[in-house]
């Protein structure tokens, strides 16, 4: 029996949809087109099959998501993951937080940072640059978003340039987008 998970974890849960995923074999041409953008080597997830109810945005979204998280230059991969986690913590998207905390851990080989964040949130005992990124990401994820000259200055003080601030903004806000889909159209459960 599966149960809904409400606490942050780095163990990636199963995502149980509240909306019926589309039947791949009955997909319309527009849906097939949108699903072509997803990796062909893995089974198409229920999440993507739920989003395929509205294929037009899905087709664009996959490239945008991959570009924001993986395109070369600018902010490091792990700091983009930190932005994603900051948003997911504010929005309490347990699933997104787990996936991106795990990616952060795999990139850095350091599990302590995510443990601190999951346990202490904005007060996490992490280094100054990580803390500035986390705080910026969390404030930006509030409603209304909090971003002032001082917030930008706090990133510059720990060495972020314009490119890195833009990249952090994109990875953080992208998860404001993803969280609002993941956390409303379904829920994380333990077991299968």
């Amino acid at each position, binding site marked *: 029996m599966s149960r809904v998970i409400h606490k942050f974890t780095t163990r990636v849960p199963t995502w149980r949809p509240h909306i019926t995923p589309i039947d791949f074999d009955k997909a319309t041409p527009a849906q097939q087109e949108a699903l072509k953008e997803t990796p062909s080597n893995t089974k198409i997830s229920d999440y993507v099959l739920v989003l395929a109810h509205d294929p037009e*945005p899905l087709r664009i979204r996959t490239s945008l998501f991959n570009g924001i998280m993986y395109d070369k230059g600018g902010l490091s991969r792990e700091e983009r993951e930190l932005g994603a986690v900051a948003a997911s913590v504010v929005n309490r998207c347990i699933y997104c937080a787990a996936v991106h905390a795990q990616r952060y851990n795999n990139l850095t080989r350091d599990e302590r940072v995510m443990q601190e964040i999951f346990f202490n949130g904005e007060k996490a005992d992490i280094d100054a640059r990580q803390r500035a990124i986390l705080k910026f990401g969390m404030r930006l994820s509030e409603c209304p978003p909090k971003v002032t000259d001082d917030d930008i200055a706090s990133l510059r003080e720990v060495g972020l340039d314009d490119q890195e601030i833009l990249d952090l903004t994109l990875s953080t806000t992208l998860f404001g987008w993803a969280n609002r889909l993941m956390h409303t159209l379904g829920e994380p459960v333990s077991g299968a």
Partner: protein
Amino acid sequence: MSHVLETAAGVPSSGPLAEALTMRGKLMELTQASYEAALLPSDAGNLPANLRAALACRMARICQQSGLTQHYADLLAGYGDDADPYQLALPGEMPPADEQRLVAMVDYVDLVTERPRDASEATISSLRTVGIDEADIVRLAGLVAFVNYQLRVAAVLSVMGKSQ
């Protein structure tokens, strides 16, 4: 190139921020394409473009993003005088109770904009109960999620742009 987001945020045409955006030019193109898919879709389902513009304007006001509030107010005005009969572009305004579907949609917009952490299975059930089909639920969720992304990017760009 005239992208809604950068225009509304008043991004300067030169300087380090402009250069950073050029480096992410492909991503800003895809952001513009996502805007068009969310606000001006070829298949709008039962969420017509005028309603989408009104809800986006409401979200922009909730997030206190003046540039995009103006953009969405102008977009809405372009659909004519009757485009938003219940003034849904203004936070706090609600449709009459007998407009059940619309009431449920506006409740969803407000909750998922302001407190997405509080969404649960009941949030989706309340849309389903009033007869909103699954494809329209996904359309509504996609609109709300995209606009919240766009509003936050604009918030940062407008602050950064002012100092350059």
